[in-house]
């Protein structure tokens, strides 16, 4: 039983990491290929929506990877390629959403919450400081205090 366990663990550890990019897709120019990989890591596969096209085995992801490489080969800049894909599939295709009107709350949310928290903390601290200020005893209270002391 123990041996079997070790064997399985070893097999799992030795299994090659699965990569979606297939050998025939890879460009000869290593610089272009590097750009292609960087671009496809930022593009969402729309079939399996939480994977990038670089990771996905879906048919559409493969087509998009090839498209990115074709466009790189014809001399397009990274921005031109991203612009093309976004023009077809919308901002959703970008794994890192851009800052614009519809994503304003998404990007600014943490900042707004932080500022709100800061205001709450300041407010709390001010109240605490206010509470620490001792109010002097009135004449009446002083007299009562001396009388209690004298009783002892």
């Amino acid at each position, binding site marked *: 039983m123990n041996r079997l366990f070790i064997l399985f663990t070893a097999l799992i550890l030795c299994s090659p990491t699965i990569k979606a990019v297939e050998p025939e897709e890879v460009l000869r120019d290593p610089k272009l290929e590097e750009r292609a990989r960087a671009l496809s890591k930022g593009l969402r596969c729309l*079939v399996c929506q939480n994977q990038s096209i670089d990771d996905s085995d879906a048919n559409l992801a493969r087509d998009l990877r090839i498209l990115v490489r074709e466009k790189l080969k014809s001399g397009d800049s990274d921005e031109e390629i991203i612009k093309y894909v976004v023009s077809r599939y919308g901002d959703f295709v970008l794994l890192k959403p851009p800052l614009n009107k519809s994503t304003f709350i998404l990007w600014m949310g943490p900042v707004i919450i932080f500022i709100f928290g800061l205001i709450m903390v300041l407010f709390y601290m001010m109240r605490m400081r206010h509470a620490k200020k001792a109010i002097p005893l009135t004449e009446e209270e002083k007299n009562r205090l001396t009388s209690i002391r004298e009783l002892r």
Partner: protein
Amino acid sequence: MRNAVIIPICTLLSLVGIFGLYLWQIGTGQKSLNHLPSTLINKPAPRFNLPPINRGGKGFSTKMLRGNVSLVNIWASWCIPCRVEHPYLMKLAQDGFSIYGINYKDDPKNANTFLKVLGNPYRAVGADHSGLTSIDWGVYGYPETFIVDSNGYIRYRHVGPLSETDLSNTIQPILKRLEN
């Protein structure tokens, strides 16, 4: 002490409100988790010129979309939901609407058999072997159906198979509106 009670309750209620609204929108069909808005709505249809699926056929190109309101359906013989929506396309064709097909990554032989057995609702079919034309249309799920007006502008997009309710609630009203 009172704040300690009120703040968590308010937070919970506002979260329930937000999620509830979202669920309600999904329930009434205003918002769908699977359907992305198309960026091509109200833009001209992409330019393409596809070869026919059968020898001697006429293929399908952007030019053919000018002049009348048409439906562009992206389909394949291997796509099971395409079979599901096929009767509704036939119905639209019988009602006189012009439907064009983009045959996505299909074996022409299978595509022709599909049309022979189930009927051919298309005025013309273009074969998209590379899938690049479909990418130009922003297609990510099959089948997809676009409504293109007589000036060649995309006015509506439907992802997935058409159903009878889609036909009567959205497709036919839009087609009729555009034709007038």
